[in-house]
């Protein structure tokens, strides 16, 4: 066993918070839940479930409308949640908007900023490692506006090249650089501050997809320098149905509304309307109120754990995961070889077993992993694989979960009667 895992195994319980998450009381086929799909969505601590229920039970009213005491409680809860959430990601100097998810946040920017700014001769620069959510909105924008959509390449170690970024920016036509903070397939942690600095010097805006980063490492949006930083509640121990977009005020002020209707207006005349102030100009309709309360509680829970500790914990599990996978014959891991260069996940293939079958066989042992293209088909093509299996950890993950995965993998190979043929490659 590797030193880190051995040392950790002596404690064995990681952050020791599993009892905070009621779902782990469940068993599957008599086995405990080994949930290794946190990159898809996180499990929820009791405090988050309680905070949402408490809000609905005790403080529920619509926001920004009522003058009665209950409505004021709802207002305070919702707007208070916004402040607590912005503080968690160090976005104090930014405007913090609520959306439905990261996909909607990126669409907001692509539609509102993009359609009022980007035209023929302009370019949007993204990367080969993006989630479809950070590809398709730009594709549609560029097609519609006659602009160029270009990609930064991913090398064999799952890294972007700053030299290629410099070359692309030097062409002088890039208006937006949109990229992920942490890849949901490779695990790669991108050098966000270096990229935003270079883009700013070249006169381009930046949008960072922080969906994977915020739940697992300290994130300081102001320090990272992104013009837009988007993330989602449900991967960060919070509820579904709420996403977050931090944006620079001066840019958001220039942008036209995205969705229109109630709550985002200042006044409505028969033929025209004027817009509400930020952030409400971008929050049409009744927002996710109870979800905001739940998410604020989730980030306070994470804050109490300490994001440095969360990162350290997930790094230890990633070391155990990578070293364990390297010992399974026929397993290939994609992405950066060193654990410290990646987030808490490993995507891999198993020679002779399709990722779907891997996921099915592991699922029978209570081990939950994801299989497929992970909403990153362009990246899959560039890796030369059709699909991978992916194991990803969270604050509640423990060494026994990773061990359960490794044991089940050996079992799957046995069932498929695969011999210890090809040598394992250290991932």
């Amino acid at each position, binding site marked *: 066993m590797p030193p880190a895992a051995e040392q950790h195994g002596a404690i064995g319980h990681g952050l020791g918070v599993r009892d905070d998450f009621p779902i782990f009381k469940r068993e599957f086929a008599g086995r405990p839940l080994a949930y290794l799909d946190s990159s898809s969505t996180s499990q929820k601590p009791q405090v988050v479930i309680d905070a949402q229920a408490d809000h609905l039970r005790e403080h529920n009213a619509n926001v920004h409308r009522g003058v009665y005491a209950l409505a004021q409680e709802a207002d305070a809860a919702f707007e208070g949640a916004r402040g607590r959430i912005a503080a968690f990601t160090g976005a104090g100097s930014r405007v913090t908007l609520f959306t439905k998810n990261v996909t909607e946040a990126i669409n907001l920017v692509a539609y509102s900023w993009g359609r009022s700014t980007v035209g023929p001769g302009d370019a949007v620069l993204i990367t080969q490692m993006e989630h479809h959510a950070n590809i398709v909105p730009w594709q549609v924008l560029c097609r519609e506006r006659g602009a160029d959509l270009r990609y930064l390449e991913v090398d064999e170690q799952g890294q972007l090249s700053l030299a290629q970024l410099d070359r692309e920016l030097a062409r002088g036509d890039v208006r937006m650089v949109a990229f992920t903070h942490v890849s949901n397939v490779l695990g790669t942690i991108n050098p966000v501050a270096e990229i935003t600095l270079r883009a700013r010097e070249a006169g381009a805006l930046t949008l960072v997809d922080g969906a994977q980063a915020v739940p697992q490492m300290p994130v300081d949006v102001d320090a990272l320098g992104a013009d837009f930083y988007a993330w989602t509640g449900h991967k960060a121990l919070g509820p579904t149905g709420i996403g977050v977009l931090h944006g620079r005020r001066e840019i958001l002020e220039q942008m036209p509304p995205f969705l229109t209707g109630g709550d985002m207006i200042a006044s409505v005349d028969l033929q025209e309307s004027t817009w509400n102030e930020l952030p409400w100009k971008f929050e049409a309709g009744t927002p996710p109120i109870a979800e905001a309360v739940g998410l604020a509680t989730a980030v306070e829970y994470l804050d109490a754990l300490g994001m440095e500790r969360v990162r350290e914990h997930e790094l230890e599990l990633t070391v155990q995961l990578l070293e364990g996978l390297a010992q399974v014959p026929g397993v290939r891991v994609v992405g950066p070889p060193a654990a410290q260069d990646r987030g808490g996940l490993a995507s891999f293939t198993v020679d002779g077993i399709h*990722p*779907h079958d891997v996921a099915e066989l592991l699922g029978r042992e209570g081990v939950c992993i994801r299989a497929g293209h992970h909403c990153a088909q362009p990246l899959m093509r560039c890796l030369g694989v059709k699909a991978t299996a992916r194991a990803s950890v969270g604050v509640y993950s423990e060494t026994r979960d990773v061990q359960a995965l490794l044991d089940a993998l050996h079992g799957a190979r046995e069932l498929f009667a695969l011999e210890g043929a090809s040598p394992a490659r250290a991932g």
Partner: protein
Amino acid sequence: MDDLYRDYILDHYKHPRNFGELEPHDLEAFEHNPLCGDELGVHIRVEDDRIADLRFHGHGCAISQAAASISSEELKGMQLSEAGQLGADWLLELLGIPISATRRKCALLGLKAVRGAVTGDDAWPA
């Protein structure tokens, strides 16, 4: 013995029958399952309104590959009109293993391609 990954399923997965390209061919179709990225195409040679020969190509999980392989042996010689009418039940019975809702499209991908080649209809077999 495993309910799903029975010996004959794994045998068809590892040694799929009637796989490869068929040249020349009269009918063809290519289908994919956007959920998991599995892809299966089929080439069919027709004689006297029957499937004289066919080959599948592509890649996918054990279930999609085994289902295509097993069905290919039944499809050879079948009237086109009959092949175009084949439904999900025909294939699932032929496969002989319990298929969960999430794996149903894996099992039906090959049949979808055959029906598409024969009838031009690219709906999932009902």
